[in-house]
């Protein structure tokens, strides 16, 4: 059901209600930026608490929309608030909030909030959140691109926060140049699609492509660039070169900010553009995703084995995990150009969505542990730095073990259910060889996750200094670990929520 496109540009006729969360976030971020200016260096915790409260406020607003379960288009069909968007936004807030909790001490110790710097790190984090929210809710190529750029520009700045740090600066340069290249790809692809359909509106593009009214060659041409741009942002092979360097070079808090929540937004972008907009082209983009997925699984898993730096290892592991998300994305429709056989669509895409959420929760915890072990003047970046964690802190050793087994996909962790859901969708399409390839690479993947577990439990501690971590981080990190087990044992609610959100979004 599409609302009538309003042609009068009077502000009064625009329904602002669906944007409540975004508006609240903008206002609150600006307020925080101002308040922070007047705060003394020791009072930076006020900025921190205010940022968390802002995210909580957004969550309350979005939670209301999510519970209402309605789909509303506004701003001339450019912006949509639907169950999928709201569910993904809720997890985005959660991921950003957890990141802020984990990185508070870490970033403080590294002078990212002192000297001539204030609490910009928090405001920039909130702006990345805003960008992601717009990406998630964009129903037009333009807002999606604007959201993407807002998110990316904030992240470039965040990566470069440690100006005196050579590797961070290098990472920022790489990220900026390659990110701009990807944005260029995206934009070029979008312009091609605009050329073929005469519209930037997702709904209109879907109608025109389904009717066969658009020039197929130009559409495919545009599609290739759009998919390449997305693959850049996701970090899928062969567009993955920036991922390990940026993950390793960025301050760990920023790594988490760009490694966790943005994947949810990128996922939403794939759903909006590829599924909602270009489903009739599924035959074409599925083949592209197939290559990206298999290559990501292969390169990610095999290269991760050779890493000794845990941030780099987790970066390659991310590449491999996203291969699984892409597998779910390409299991939605079968039967080539006949998009009518879409009975499997909502289950498959919701499996990919569940996988993305699982990945985000697990990644948050793993990088949280990396930050926990770091002290001022010391980065716990090598896998070897985890040696003997079981003796230094048995509880956090258990948490890290849970997270690693979850990434490896061993029950009873959350990662198993996620892998299961995606594999089920793939097998349902009859592509058994693909499922077998996926599990074989998971087996290879299990090796390097096990190696971390081995380092934690089997090796003797080299560094026996006690771990000093603020209470908020301890509590959240513990809850993070418990959640990964709980959602593995009792995944029913979240799985059902993903499915119903996806069904409603695709049905509208």
């Amino acid at each position, binding site marked *: 059901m599409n609302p009538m496109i309003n042609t009068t540009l009077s502000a009064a006729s625009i329904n602002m209600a669906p944007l409540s969360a975004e508006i609240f976030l903008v206002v609150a971020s600006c307020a925080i930026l101002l308040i922070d200016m007047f705060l003394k260096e020791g009072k930076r915790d006020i900025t921190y608490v205010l940022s968390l409260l802002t995210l909580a406020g957004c969550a309350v607003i979005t939670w209301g929309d999510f519970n209402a379960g309605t789909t509303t288009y506004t701003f001339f069909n450019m912006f949509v608030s639907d169950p999928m968007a709201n569910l993904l936004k809720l997890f985005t807030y959660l991921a950003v909030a957890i990141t802020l909790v984990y990185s508070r001490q870490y970033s403080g110790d590294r002078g990212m909030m002192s000297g001539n710097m204030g609490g910009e790190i928090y405001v920039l984090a909130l702006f990345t959140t805003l960008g992601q929210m717009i990406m998630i809710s964009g129903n037009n190529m333009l807002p999606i691109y604007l959201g993407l750029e807002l998110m990316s520009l904030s992240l470039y700045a965040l990566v470069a926060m440690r100006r005196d740090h050579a590797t961070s600066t290098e990472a920022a340069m790489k990220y900026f140049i390659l990110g701009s290249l990807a944005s260029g790809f995206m934009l070029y692809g979008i312009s091609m699609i605009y050329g073929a359909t005469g519209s930037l509106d997702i709904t209109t593009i879907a109608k025109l492509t389904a009717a066969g009214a658009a020039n197929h060659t130009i559409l495919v041409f545009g599609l290739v660039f759009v998919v390449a741009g997305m693959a850049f942002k996701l970090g899928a092979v062969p567009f993955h070169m920036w991922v390990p360097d940026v993950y390793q070079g960025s301050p760990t808090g920023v790594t988490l900010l760009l490694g966790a929540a943005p994947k949810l937004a990128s996922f939403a972008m794939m759903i909006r553009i590829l599924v909602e907009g270009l489903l009739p082209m599924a035959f074409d983009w599925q083949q592209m995703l197939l290559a990206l997925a298999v290559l990501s699984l292969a390169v990610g898993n095999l290269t991760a084995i050779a890493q000794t730096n845990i941030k780099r290892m987790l970066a390659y592991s991310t590449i491999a995990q996203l291969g699984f998300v892409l597998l779910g994305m390409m299991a939605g429709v079968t039967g080539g150009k006949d998009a009518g056989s879409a009975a499997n669509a909502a289950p498959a895409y919701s499996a990919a969505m569940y996988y993305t959420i699982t990945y985000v929760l697990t990644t948050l915890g793993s990088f949280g542990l990396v930050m926990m072990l770091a002290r001022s003047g010391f980065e716990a970046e090598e896998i070897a730095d985890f040696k003997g964690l*079981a003796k230094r802190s048995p509880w956090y050793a258990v948490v890290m073990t849970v997270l690693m087994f979850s990434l490896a996909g061993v029950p009873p962790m959350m990662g198993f259910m996620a892998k299961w859901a995606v594999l089920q969708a793939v097998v349902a399409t009859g592509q058994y060889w693909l499922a077998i390839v996926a599990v074989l690479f998971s087996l290879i993947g299990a090796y390097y996750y096990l190696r971390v577990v081995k380092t934690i439990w089997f090796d003797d501690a080299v560094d026996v200094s006690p771990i000093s971590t603020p209470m908020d981080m301890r509590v959240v990190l513990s809850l993070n670990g418990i959640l990964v087990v709980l959602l593995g044992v009792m*995944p029913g609610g979240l799985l059902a929520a993903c499915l119903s959100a996806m069904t409603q979004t695709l049905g509208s």
Partner: protein
Amino acid sequence: MQSTISSYPYLSLSVWLPIIFGVIVLAVGRDSKAGFTRVLSLIGAVVSFLPTIPLFTQFSNTAHGPQFVEKAAWIERFNIQYYLGIDGLSLWFVPLTAFITIIVVISAWQVIEERVAQYMGSFLMLSGLMIGVFVALDGLLFYFFFEATLIPMFIIIGVFGGPNRVYAAFKFFLYTFMGSLLTLIAIIYLYNKSGGSFDILAWHQLPLTMTEQVLVFIAFLMAFAVKVPMFPVHTWLPDAHVEAPTGGSVVLAAIMLKLGGYGFLRFSLPIAPDASHYLAPLIIVLSLIAVIYIGLVAMVQKDMKKLVAYSSIAHMGFVTLGFFIFNEIGVQGGIVQMISHGFVSGAMFLCIGVLYDRMHSREIADYGGVVNRMPKFAAFSVLFAMANCGLPATSGFVGEFMVILGAVQFNFWTGLLAATALILGAAYSLWMVKRVVFGKIGNKHVAELTDLNGREFFMLGVLAILTIYMGLYPAPFTDSLQVSVADLLQHVSVSKLPAMH
């Protein structure tokens, strides 16, 4: 199939009590309070054993289908159910697992002094997870437990094992993980094929073509053959056994290997009956290779644990042989052999552990004349070695005799080859006992040995009583099997293929 709904959730209690106790032990146990941790673990193990008692006292030997059934929706999105139940095939493994866990806790009493809570907690959780494998009647629930058992065992071998423990732990994990991942695809296939059901009993009735059956059978074989382990995918077991601490070896041999054997009965045979018949010659040949070749390999081992590990592979070859000759006495014999092997191999590893705690060596050559210093120990080790080679009046005899009987019915030469196991078993078991226990005192370290203390005497004594009891009076075990085995064979004899016209 009729099923009886239980009034008390005995099965849930059997699964979750040890897991809960394991978590508690991990949470509150400290090395500074090691004594308290041990007592708490023992209480946990004993309390967890209690709900398994009604299972065999109240089990109906004449009822068909699963008993003590518990069923609830678990993950509605995929129609996954929390569906538990036992029949004759799985009945005895539940109390066996809980019982062996008590023995393991006792065996570690004075031996494990560091990270006590982690050791005890891992075993308690492992116990609950393994019971879960035996009682799950939902395909995904089964897989959930089956895979989850890898985590505590990986930690046990890796943390408490010998010098080469890291290698052994990785080999153990990756080998089994590889096998079970392909099984996952088979489970998903069956789920899709059956229109979205994970009910194992419904899968039994699912019609499948020959190609489907063969592929499903092979996918399951990947997991179960590694677990059993069958030749040629057995190589992880000797490494895991040698490096694992005593308790780890006991659980590995007594229970974990049985997960594979049980899997054949629950999945492979009834879901793919035609493929089972078609591929039976392959399994029989592999089983005979395990019995004879691995028996010969066992004979030349210099390390006691390795010897018993190879002996386990040979004995499990007997089990798979019994399953795939498709007669009642063979299948029953296979199951009885699994239960008996649980007692006997566990006891053998405990005996080796007793010696290892005193001498810190497992080399046969480092011993000799132990009987002179440890007469009580010598008596037990002779008994268990006899049981291991199938002496009448011990539990080892019952299973082996039944399988050989079944094999002779099936084919004389198969029976004859299987029977060589008795000779080989006697050769390696008794020769080891001769070299370790009898003769003159080998060296001055042996001369300083002290005999069993009360704790060791107790745990070996209980196992000895059970071994002899089961050897003299196997009826309680075999009676409870009969109906389920007959039903299974009846089911397997009916082809699932569409009738040929």
